Protein backbone atom coordinates (compact mmCIF):
# COMPACT_ATOMS: atom_id res chain seq x y z
CA UNK A 1 0.00 0.00 0.00
CA UNK A 2 1.38 3.39 -1.04
CA UNK A 3 0.25 6.86 -0.02
CA UNK A 4 -0.12 9.13 -3.01
CA UNK A 5 -1.11 12.78 -3.39
CA UNK A 6 -2.64 12.67 -6.88
CA UNK A 7 -1.96 16.37 -7.44
CA UNK A 8 1.79 15.80 -7.05
CA UNK A 9 3.46 14.73 -10.31
CA UNK A 10 6.58 13.50 -8.55
CA UNK A 11 4.54 11.36 -6.16
CA UNK A 12 3.03 9.61 -9.20
CA UNK A 13 6.47 8.94 -10.64
CA UNK A 14 7.69 7.50 -7.32
CA UNK A 15 4.57 5.31 -7.00
CA UNK A 16 4.96 3.97 -10.53
CA UNK A 17 8.65 3.26 -9.93
CA UNK A 18 7.70 1.31 -6.78
CA UNK A 19 5.09 -0.75 -8.66
CA UNK A 20 7.46 -1.52 -11.54
CA UNK A 21 10.19 -2.38 -9.05
CA UNK A 22 7.85 -4.77 -7.26
CA UNK A 23 6.11 -6.50 -10.15
CA UNK A 24 7.94 -5.45 -13.31
CA UNK A 25 4.81 -4.06 -14.98
CA UNK A 26 1.71 -1.92 -14.53
CA UNK A 27 -1.54 -3.59 -15.54
CA UNK A 28 -4.36 -1.42 -14.20
CA UNK A 29 -4.83 2.20 -13.18
CA UNK A 30 -8.06 3.31 -11.51
CA UNK A 31 -8.25 7.06 -10.97
CA UNK A 32 -10.73 7.31 -8.14
CA UNK A 33 -9.43 10.18 -6.01
CA UNK A 34 -11.32 13.44 -5.93
CA UNK A 35 -13.39 15.76 -3.80
CA UNK A 36 -16.11 18.34 -4.17
CA UNK A 37 -16.55 21.77 -2.68
CA UNK A 38 -19.96 23.07 -3.67
CA UNK A 39 -20.94 26.71 -4.17
CA UNK A 40 -22.88 28.71 -6.70
CA UNK A 41 -20.46 29.99 -9.29
CA UNK A 42 -21.11 33.64 -8.43
CA UNK A 43 -19.91 32.91 -4.91
CA UNK A 44 -17.16 30.41 -5.74
CA UNK A 45 -13.66 31.18 -4.47
CA UNK A 46 -10.56 30.81 -6.61
CA UNK A 47 -9.29 28.02 -4.38
CA UNK A 48 -12.68 26.28 -4.42
CA UNK A 49 -12.43 26.17 -8.19
CA UNK A 50 -8.75 25.31 -8.45
CA UNK A 51 -8.58 22.59 -5.80
CA UNK A 52 -11.53 20.72 -7.27
CA UNK A 53 -10.01 20.90 -10.74
CA UNK A 54 -6.64 19.78 -9.33
CA UNK A 55 -7.81 16.71 -7.44
CA UNK A 56 -10.39 15.48 -9.95
CA UNK A 57 -8.98 16.42 -13.35
CA UNK A 58 -5.27 17.21 -13.07
CA UNK A 59 -4.77 14.20 -10.78
CA UNK A 60 -6.35 11.99 -13.43
CA UNK A 61 -4.13 13.57 -16.09
CA UNK A 62 -0.96 12.97 -14.05
CA UNK A 63 -1.95 9.35 -13.42
CA UNK A 64 -2.78 8.62 -17.05
CA UNK A 65 0.39 10.29 -18.33
CA UNK A 66 2.50 8.38 -15.83
CA UNK A 67 1.31 4.94 -17.02
CA UNK A 68 0.69 5.66 -20.72
CA UNK A 69 4.15 4.84 -22.09
CA UNK A 70 4.82 1.83 -19.83
CA UNK A 71 1.44 0.37 -20.82
CA UNK A 72 2.09 1.12 -24.50
CA UNK A 73 5.46 -0.63 -24.24
CA UNK A 74 3.75 -3.65 -22.66
CA UNK A 75 1.08 -3.49 -25.37
CA UNK A 76 -1.47 -4.04 -22.62
CA UNK A 77 -3.12 -2.00 -19.91
CA UNK A 78 -6.42 -0.96 -18.42
CA UNK A 79 -7.29 2.54 -17.25
CA UNK A 80 -10.61 3.17 -15.53
CA UNK A 81 -11.37 6.75 -14.58
CA UNK A 82 -14.08 7.53 -12.07
CA UNK A 83 -16.06 10.57 -13.17
CA UNK A 84 -19.56 11.31 -11.89
CA UNK A 85 -23.12 11.70 -13.01
CA UNK A 86 -22.42 15.39 -12.31
CA UNK A 87 -20.41 15.41 -15.55
CA UNK A 88 -23.65 14.87 -17.45
CA UNK A 89 -26.43 16.30 -15.28
CA UNK A 90 -25.60 20.02 -14.80
CA UNK A 91 -26.01 20.01 -11.00
CA UNK A 92 -26.59 23.45 -9.46
CA UNK A 93 -23.77 24.39 -7.08
CA UNK A 94 -21.20 22.14 -8.75
CA UNK A 95 -19.81 24.09 -11.70
CA UNK A 96 -16.29 23.25 -10.53
CA UNK A 97 -16.98 19.55 -9.93
CA UNK A 98 -19.13 19.15 -13.06
CA UNK A 99 -16.48 20.82 -15.21
CA UNK A 100 -13.73 18.67 -13.71
CA UNK A 101 -15.67 15.43 -14.14
CA UNK A 102 -16.79 16.34 -17.67
CA UNK A 103 -13.10 16.96 -18.29
CA UNK A 104 -12.35 13.45 -17.03
CA UNK A 105 -14.91 12.03 -19.47
CA UNK A 106 -13.40 13.96 -22.40
CA UNK A 107 -9.83 13.13 -21.38
CA UNK A 108 -10.70 9.42 -21.18
CA UNK A 109 -12.50 9.25 -24.53
CA UNK A 110 -9.66 11.06 -26.25
CA UNK A 111 -6.86 9.09 -24.59
CA UNK A 112 -8.72 5.90 -25.50
CA UNK A 113 -8.20 6.74 -29.17
CA UNK A 114 -4.55 7.63 -28.66
CA UNK A 115 -3.57 4.31 -27.05
CA UNK A 116 -6.09 1.92 -28.65
CA UNK A 117 -3.70 0.22 -31.03
CA UNK A 118 -1.29 -0.44 -28.19
CA UNK A 119 -3.92 -2.66 -26.59
CA UNK A 120 -4.55 -0.20 -23.77
CA UNK A 121 -8.19 0.55 -22.91
CA UNK A 122 -9.50 3.69 -21.21
CA UNK A 123 -13.04 3.85 -19.88
CA UNK A 124 -15.02 6.10 -17.60
CA UNK A 125 -17.50 5.22 -14.89
CA UNK A 126 -20.08 7.82 -13.85
CA UNK A 127 -21.60 6.94 -10.48
CA UNK A 128 -24.77 8.69 -9.37
CA UNK A 129 -25.75 8.78 -5.68
CA UNK A 130 -23.53 6.23 -3.93
CA UNK A 131 -23.54 5.77 -0.15
CA UNK A 132 -20.05 7.02 0.63
CA UNK A 133 -18.44 9.73 2.73
CA UNK A 134 -19.14 12.15 -0.11
CA UNK A 135 -22.87 11.96 0.74
CA UNK A 136 -22.34 11.97 4.51
CA UNK A 137 -22.72 15.74 4.68
CA UNK A 138 -26.27 15.63 3.27
CA UNK A 139 -29.07 16.33 5.74
CA UNK A 140 -32.14 14.09 5.89
CA UNK A 141 -34.32 16.37 3.71
CA UNK A 142 -31.64 16.54 1.02
CA UNK A 143 -31.22 12.75 1.13
CA UNK A 144 -34.95 12.25 0.66
CA UNK A 145 -35.08 14.77 -2.19
CA UNK A 146 -32.13 13.06 -3.87
CA UNK A 147 -33.67 9.63 -3.39
CA UNK A 148 -36.87 10.77 -5.14
CA UNK A 149 -34.84 11.41 -8.33
CA UNK A 150 -33.61 7.80 -8.41
CA UNK A 151 -36.00 5.43 -10.21
CA UNK A 152 -34.70 2.52 -8.09
CA UNK A 153 -35.59 4.47 -4.91
CA UNK A 154 -32.26 3.76 -3.23
CA UNK A 155 -28.67 4.97 -3.32
CA UNK A 156 -26.01 2.74 -4.83
CA UNK A 157 -23.46 0.80 -2.81
CA UNK A 158 -19.71 1.26 -3.29
CA UNK A 159 -19.37 -2.42 -4.22
CA UNK A 160 -21.81 -1.88 -7.09
CA UNK A 161 -19.41 0.66 -8.57
CA UNK A 162 -16.39 -1.51 -7.81
CA UNK A 163 -17.96 -4.43 -9.71
CA UNK A 164 -18.15 -2.34 -12.89
CA UNK A 165 -14.56 -1.16 -12.44
CA UNK A 166 -13.36 -4.74 -12.00
CA UNK A 167 -15.22 -5.79 -15.15
CA UNK A 168 -13.66 -2.97 -17.20
CA UNK A 169 -10.23 -4.02 -15.92
CA UNK A 170 -10.63 -7.70 -16.79
CA UNK A 171 -9.69 -9.51 -20.04
CA UNK A 172 -13.36 -9.93 -21.03
CA UNK A 173 -13.59 -6.15 -21.52
CA UNK A 174 -10.73 -6.05 -24.06
CA UNK A 175 -12.83 -4.50 -26.87
CA UNK A 176 -14.50 -1.85 -24.68
CA UNK A 177 -12.66 1.47 -24.79
CA UNK A 178 -13.67 5.11 -24.76
CA UNK A 179 -16.94 4.11 -23.12
CA UNK A 180 -18.83 6.04 -20.47
CA UNK A 181 -20.77 3.82 -18.08
CA UNK A 182 -23.44 5.37 -15.82
CA UNK A 183 -24.13 3.61 -12.53
CA UNK A 184 -27.05 5.60 -11.16
CA UNK A 185 -30.11 3.45 -10.53
CA UNK A 186 -31.66 4.76 -13.74
CA UNK A 187 -31.59 8.54 -13.15
CA UNK A 188 -30.80 9.45 -16.75
Amino acid at each position, binding site marked *: MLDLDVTDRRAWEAALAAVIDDSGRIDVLVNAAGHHEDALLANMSDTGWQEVLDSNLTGTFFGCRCVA*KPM*MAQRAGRIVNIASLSALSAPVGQTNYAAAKAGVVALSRTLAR*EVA*RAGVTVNTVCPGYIDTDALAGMDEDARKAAMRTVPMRRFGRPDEVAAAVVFLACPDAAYITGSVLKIDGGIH
Partner: protein
Amino acid sequence: MSSAQSELKEKIKAILVEELMLSEEPAEIGDEMALFGEGLGLDSVDALQLVVALEKHFGLKVEDAEKAKQILQNVNSIAAAIGAGGSA
Protein backbone atom coordinates in the same frame (compact mmCIF):
# COMPACT_ATOMS: atom_id res chain seq x y z
CA MET B 1 24.88 -4.01 -47.35
CA SER B 2 26.07 -6.28 -44.55
CA SER B 3 23.84 -9.08 -43.44
CA ALA B 4 23.66 -7.51 -39.96
CA GLN B 5 22.25 -4.33 -41.56
CA SER B 6 19.72 -6.25 -43.57
CA GLU B 7 18.70 -8.29 -40.53
CA LEU B 8 18.22 -5.07 -38.56
CA LYS B 9 15.96 -3.66 -41.28
CA GLU B 10 13.91 -6.85 -41.40
CA LYS B 11 13.49 -6.61 -37.64
CA ILE B 12 12.40 -2.96 -37.87
CA LYS B 13 9.80 -3.87 -40.50
CA ALA B 14 8.48 -6.72 -38.38
CA ILE B 15 8.22 -4.35 -35.40
CA LEU B 16 6.37 -1.77 -37.53
CA VAL B 17 3.79 -4.35 -38.58
CA GLU B 18 3.40 -5.90 -35.15
CA GLU B 19 3.45 -2.81 -32.93
CA LEU B 20 1.27 -0.67 -35.21
CA MET B 21 -1.12 -3.49 -36.14
CA LEU B 22 -0.54 -2.84 -39.86
CA SER B 23 -2.30 -4.95 -42.47
CA GLU B 24 0.81 -4.90 -44.69
CA GLU B 25 3.37 -7.70 -44.69
CA PRO B 26 6.89 -6.68 -43.56
CA ALA B 27 8.21 -7.50 -47.04
CA GLU B 28 5.85 -4.91 -48.58
CA ILE B 29 7.63 -2.10 -46.70
CA GLY B 30 10.51 -0.70 -48.73
CA ASP B 31 13.68 0.55 -47.04
CA GLU B 32 13.11 4.05 -48.43
CA MET B 33 9.30 4.07 -48.24
CA ALA B 34 8.05 7.16 -46.38
CA LEU B 35 6.43 6.10 -43.12
CA PHE B 36 4.16 9.13 -42.82
CA GLY B 37 1.91 10.85 -45.34
CA GLU B 38 2.31 9.36 -48.81
CA GLY B 39 3.84 5.94 -48.39
CA LEU B 40 2.85 3.85 -45.40
CA GLY B 41 0.40 6.54 -44.22
CA LEU B 42 1.20 6.45 -40.50
CA ASP B 43 -0.22 9.15 -38.19
CA SER B 44 0.86 10.87 -34.96
CA VAL B 45 -0.60 8.08 -32.80
CA ASP B 46 1.56 5.57 -34.70
CA ALA B 47 4.57 7.85 -34.23
CA LEU B 48 4.24 7.75 -30.44
CA GLN B 49 3.75 3.99 -30.42
CA LEU B 50 6.77 3.61 -32.70
CA VAL B 51 8.95 5.75 -30.42
CA VAL B 52 7.91 3.63 -27.43
CA ALA B 53 8.57 0.41 -29.40
CA LEU B 54 12.01 1.52 -30.64
CA GLU B 55 13.09 2.29 -27.09
CA LYS B 56 11.74 -1.05 -25.88
CA HIS B 57 13.37 -3.16 -28.61
CA PHE B 58 16.57 -1.23 -29.33
CA GLY B 59 17.10 1.15 -26.41
CA LEU B 60 16.81 4.00 -28.91
CA LYS B 61 15.73 7.20 -27.19
CA VAL B 62 13.99 9.75 -29.39
CA GLU B 63 14.13 12.83 -27.22
CA ASP B 64 12.21 15.50 -29.13
CA ALA B 65 9.94 16.14 -32.10
CA GLU B 66 12.73 17.43 -34.34
CA LYS B 67 14.81 14.31 -33.77
CA ALA B 68 11.71 12.15 -34.31
CA LYS B 69 11.07 13.79 -37.68
CA GLN B 70 14.62 12.99 -38.73
CA ILE B 71 14.74 9.43 -37.40
CA LEU B 72 11.26 8.24 -38.35
CA GLN B 73 11.42 9.08 -42.05
CA ASN B 74 11.80 5.51 -43.27
CA VAL B 75 13.31 2.13 -42.35
CA ASN B 76 16.79 3.24 -43.46
CA SER B 77 16.78 6.32 -41.22
CA ILE B 78 15.61 4.26 -38.24
CA ALA B 79 18.33 1.68 -38.88
CA ALA B 80 20.94 4.44 -39.11
CA ALA B 81 19.83 5.93 -35.78
CA ILE B 82 19.97 2.53 -34.09
CA GLY B 83 23.42 1.92 -35.57
CA ALA B 84 24.60 5.33 -34.37
CA GLY B 85 23.53 5.11 -30.76
CA GLY B 86 20.93 2.48 -30.00
CA SER B 87 21.60 -0.89 -28.46
CA ALA B 88 20.30 -3.14 -31.22
